[in-house]
């Protein structure tokens, strides 16, 4: 059973319950979700197993405390995304709602996967002594600071590595920023000039900053 279906079901239960404060009839639920009774029963079985709902005699459904909490969370996320899409795209509310409904479940899986491609969160967070390994650029054809030589005028393309990203950002090493490679020792410690300040970087950090030559 897909996670999104369970979340949909919880959200529906939550909306119905918060309107009427009563146990939910199966018919109401299938109308809200536009699914067949069999499908809904399957989902409910699973939710009951996980302790999010309880079934009353006669097939009516009530939310447990955890179920209510989860449902509320999905509901809130849904509203937020809906509002964001409206703000962002000027989409009409109905269309945004549909879009948001699809997104609210998928953000955590698909999007993240795609995302990590670009910001290479998958890069190892740190450099370990003793296990030196050459790291390939996240994408083919990208060159890191270490591939250039002293005096080169460069522009930052992307920065990866979560551990030290924050300090680099604050010093102005963000995508699009012009920097120049001021010094590069034979042991590959480097100094870059960014915003009229010199910043010294260890080789493993320089390796995580992808740049291109400025024209």
């Amino acid at each position, binding site marked *: 059973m897909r996670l999104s279906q369970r979340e949909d079901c919880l959200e529906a239960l939550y909306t119905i319950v918060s309107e009427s404060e009563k146990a939910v009839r199966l018919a109401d639920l299938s109308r809200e979700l536009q699914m067949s009774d069999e499908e809904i029963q399957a989902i409910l079985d699973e939710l009951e197993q996980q302790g999010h709902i309880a079934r009353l005699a006669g097939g009516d459904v009530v939310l447990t405390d955890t179920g209510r909490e989860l449902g509320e*969370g999905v509901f809130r996320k849904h509203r937020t995304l809906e*509002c964001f899409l409206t703000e962002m795209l000027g989409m009409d509310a109905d269309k945004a709602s549909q879009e948001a409904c699809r997104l609210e479940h998928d*953000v955590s899986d698909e999007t993240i996967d795609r995302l990590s491609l*670009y*910001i290479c969160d998958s890069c190892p967070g740190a450099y370990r*002594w003793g296990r030196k390994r050459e790291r390939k650029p996240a994408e083919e054809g990208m060159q890191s600071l270490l591939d250039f030589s002293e005096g080169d005028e460069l522009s930052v393309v992307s920065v990866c590595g979560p551990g030290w990203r924050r300090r680099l950002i604050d010093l102005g090493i963000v995508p699009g920023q012009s920097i120049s490679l001021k010094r590069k020792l034979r042991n590959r410690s480097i100094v870059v000039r960014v*915003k009229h*300040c010199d910043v*010294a970087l*260890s080789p493993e950090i320089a390796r995580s900053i992808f740049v291109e030559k400025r024209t």
Partner: protein
Amino acid sequence: MKVALIGNPSVGKSLIFNQLTGIGVEVSNYPGTTVELKGGSTCYQREMIDIVDFPGIYSLDGTSEEEELVRTFLLEGKADAAIVVMDATRLERNLYLLLQLAEFGIPMIAVLNMIDEMEKAGLEIDTTALEYQLGIEVLQTAASKGRNIEKIIPLVRSSARPATLTVPYDRSVEAAVRTLEKTLGAGRTESLWALQGIKKDFALFEAASAITEQIEARHRMTIQQIIAANRHNYARTIADRVIKKREARKRFDLDQLLMGTIPGIPILILVLLSILLFVFIVGAFLEETIVEAFQILLIDPLLGLGLPPLVETIALSLAIALQAGLGIAFPFVFIFYILLSILEDTGYMTRAAFLADNAMHRVGMHGGAIIPLILGLGCNVPAVMGLRNLTSRREKIIGAFLITMVPCSARTVIILGIVAAFVGILPALTIYLIVFLLITATGLLLSRFTPGEQFGMILEMAPLRLPQAELVIKKSWMRMQEFLFIAMPMLLVGSIFLGLFELFGITAMFEELIAPFSEGVLGIPSYATTALLFGILRKEMAFEMLAILGGTANLSAIMTSLQLYIFALVSVLFVPCVSTIAVLFKEMGGRITAAVTFYTVGLGIIIGALVNLIFG
């Protein structure tokens, strides 16, 4: 009224704070000098103005300890106004922090410091234009020359106001902010924090992270990068508008020399060696003069008086303690502090860090760690506190071990006062060599076995400056006070007790007890081992107590060269002093402190015994 001094590292906040309040705060030319809040107050037109000096930070959105500290302080509304201190020569980068601070909406003024350096660099900043861009008052100052500092408080008092600027963010970020405002009623600043993943309010955080995922997918950048890039861009726009001219004056760039492998690394070694040699030579000369003066003017006349034994013991103990403390420790320690202060103020420390980066990686840390290690030459205590600037626990553990092994100025006193003075300068240098080798070996070993991650160095190079004599002396004197007012009284009291113990025969009993170990293992007389134990209180006390217990400052009369050498070597290596142990405990916890202590005790005894075995 409470005013906060906020700014990037090394922009002159602490110097301004000192001049505003008259309180001594250490000022240095490298990042991370101020690690805690320092408060002080000044009186202006019969009103008390409290001034808080914050640690230098690059950002208010980060998660580092200092950034968190400043953010919380501001969030809790503890500051009525802020003084944003900026380095005029690095305006664009400094504006980034100001833009963040502006979003807090607290009243503020901007201080453009270091205009003397800016003028030298051929720059001019249009203050009126900058005021217009920011919507707050801007004052140009030169703290090192005291220029315009007196205008700061009146200006804060009369015209601090919230900045009117708004950073134009990316369309999607703005949409997200509006969304959070609409759905949850969050303010602009909180929304921006939540979007960047700073957890304050759970519902807000949850909603924000759902949006964040959307934005990041669209932009192929993290939201932190987007927001930061927007701010940096806006900072550049402002800087471009207000910087009037940038004469590309061709000046000789000293960094060409300092930051190349050749001659940079030879220069680094030369700098460190010449510091040691200078202390050796000048310190020894001063020491001799002062000790001599004490002997002729105080001790000899005292012995000539013929006082009753009890009074004579006490008086003599006091006199010898004074002689040992002021005559021996003072010259060395003070000269050391002066030299280190000069080194710090030139901005050379960051160059040293850059050059040492590769070597420091081999001992499990990065170049930045060389700064606490060099500082450790002065005193281990601030050096251990400097460990906070290291990122991971692994680096901190390794750093804790290595720093406590660095011979601080008090240990230099021992090496110089005993070995250089009575054995020779070359043997004295071999002690440094032995310690250096042991530190390296320890580092290599620890980097193999200490668990955890290692992060690389990201370090802003401090500008090179000519240190000012007045500031250097002031700083050295401040550090010296600790020695005069804490160490000296301890020495005096200790000395009196020892004198009394001696008089009543307690010392003899203890020495008899310890004699087999002392003479058998280390090959030094048992009273020397007693003196060694005093080194736990303050390192140089081992030496001073040796003089007191031996009854003479002329040590070559009572011990052989080898004995003196072993005594010095063991006392340099074994056990960090009480203050170091205390600060280690605070920074690193009990387990690491115990490990460091046992390790150094063991090392000291083993090396001492080895030397005795080989040469004895």
